[in-house]
């Protein structure tokens, strides 16, 4: 477990804060060039791995396999099945986790009571949930959904509790003394304070839940992206497996860069001004 409930609760996983400072002249060209160079380097490293490691499938084979999956309808079919389970488990985890997290942020008693349990939840590896739910619920939809829920829940609780604690109580008092309306307070005092940790809650929940989903489908499912990647692995067709790994990574990059990144920048705009 990482960034946990103890006061300095920081942040874990996902790399990368390149400080986004307002532009210099090369502000746009530089990063684009760097990104291009880094993608080129990654492909080069992959190619090296293909040459050196005799079991690593090449890029061309992998892409071929991916388009074959797409042509046969296995790609989008399994993605759709998995997304259903993923969203269901994640939404329940966000709702329950937010309720418990707010409680932890507001009440010292709730914080003391739940901190150790949350720490245990953060420390437990997702694979154990996947294996247990497979034994408990068999090969049904409940296995991946419950795993997703359990994998995401502690991350939501910890980060929402942190968000609630970040609300500046002195500013709230001042606002009340000056008769600032409730909506104004929410918009200008509460929202900026909780934005960062709330985005972090969603981000960690997604990362952890996705990992849990794949494992649950690997061990206890007969459909979905995790199951499909296992199908190729069991058939000893590593290019098929790798094709699905590309899908897994694409999903994470998409969520991080296209969905959460802009939301986060919008929410934290005020800081750079």
């Amino acid at each position: 477990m990482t960034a946990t409930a103890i006061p300095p609760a920081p942040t874990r996983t996902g790399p990368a804060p390149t400080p986004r400072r307002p532009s210099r002249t090369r502000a746009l060209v530089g990063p684009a060039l760097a990104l291009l160079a880094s993608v080129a380097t990654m492909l080069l490293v992959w190619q090296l791995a293909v040459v050196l490691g005799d079991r690593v499938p090449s890029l061309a084979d992998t892409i071929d396999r991916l388009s074959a999956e797409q042509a046969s309808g296995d790609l989008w079919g399994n993605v759709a099945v998995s997304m259903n389970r993923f969203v269901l488990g994640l939404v329940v985890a966000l709702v329950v986790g937010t309720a418990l997290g707010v409680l932890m942020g507001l009440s010292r008693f709730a914080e003391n009571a739940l901190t150790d349990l949350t720490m245990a939840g953060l420390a437990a590896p997702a694979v154990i949930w996947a294996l247990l739910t497979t034994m408990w619920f068999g090969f049904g939809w409940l296995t991946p959904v419950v795993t997703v829920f359990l994998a995401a829940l502690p991350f939501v609780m910890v980060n929402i509790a942190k968000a609630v604690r970040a609300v500046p109580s002195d500013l709230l008092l001042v606002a009340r003394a000056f008769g600032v309306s409730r909506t104004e307070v929410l918009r200008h005092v509460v929202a900026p304070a909780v934005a960062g940790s709330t985005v972090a809650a969603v981000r960690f929940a997604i990362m952890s839940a996705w990992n849990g989903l794949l494992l649950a489908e690997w061990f206890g499912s007969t459909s979905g992206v995790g199951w499909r990647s296992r199908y190729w692995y069991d058939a000893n067709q590593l290019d098929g497996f790798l094709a699905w790994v590309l899908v897994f990574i694409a999903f994470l990059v998409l969520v991080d860069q296209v969905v959460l990144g802009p939301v986060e920048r919008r929410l934290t705009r005020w800081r750079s001004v």
Partner: protein
Amino acid sequence: MSTLVAARPSVGRSKSRRPASAPRWLVSSGALVVAVLAWGIASAVVDDNIAPGPLEVLERVVDITVSGAALDNFASSIVKILAGFGLAMLAGLPIGFAMGRSRFLSSYFSMPLFVLGNVPGLTYAVFGLVIFGVGATGPIVVSALVAVPFVAINVAEGVRSVDGKLLRMCQAFGRSPADVVRHVYLPAITAFVFVGVRYGFAMAWKVEALTEVFGARDGVGFMIRRAYQEFQVADMLAWTTLFVVAMVLIERGLAALESRLFAWRKDLA
């Protein structure tokens, strides 16, 4: 991408705790007791092999610990993690240093590090097994790959935290690069590296255990896998309990060590 791996060292913040109304340990152990009772009742209601009660699991925990199996397998896992972290340091320090010094390299490395840090554990586990076979190499390489982003990004943060004026002054007074590294950069980045290790540890251990689930001859993950295949849910839960307890203890130990070692860095608080 956001600022997720880089965490400010937690030095000195602990004193900001507000005075508690009810003793903390009482409330938290009370909550644990309630949770275990709920588990006991649930397992009594289900009354099946797949939901063993807390007493049964406790019995297995004691057996495993007394027989020495716990020590052997945890030691084996932790040695692999340490080796992995050694490798991660070797790679992460120069990468982080370069990222802290150059904006271009910072953008250059951010994508690969994001991918390394976020690739689902399943992928690492399978490739660890496929490429390195059943043995210690797979888990070691995998934990190194997982840990590199944590080390690199925190080193970069540490390097960025170095005061530019201090560097210019070093230059003005003709300090050698070795002196600058030794007296300016090193003190600045150690605290950050420590944080990186602390957060990377949990991630790395989880993925390492997963790799052992897929293929190993010993280690915690391997024992969980064996219990799963033999349908011994009590054993699975016993190993998981030990894993969670060990993880929490190590985390707390590292956090305590961190606030002791870096207590002098008041500026980080």
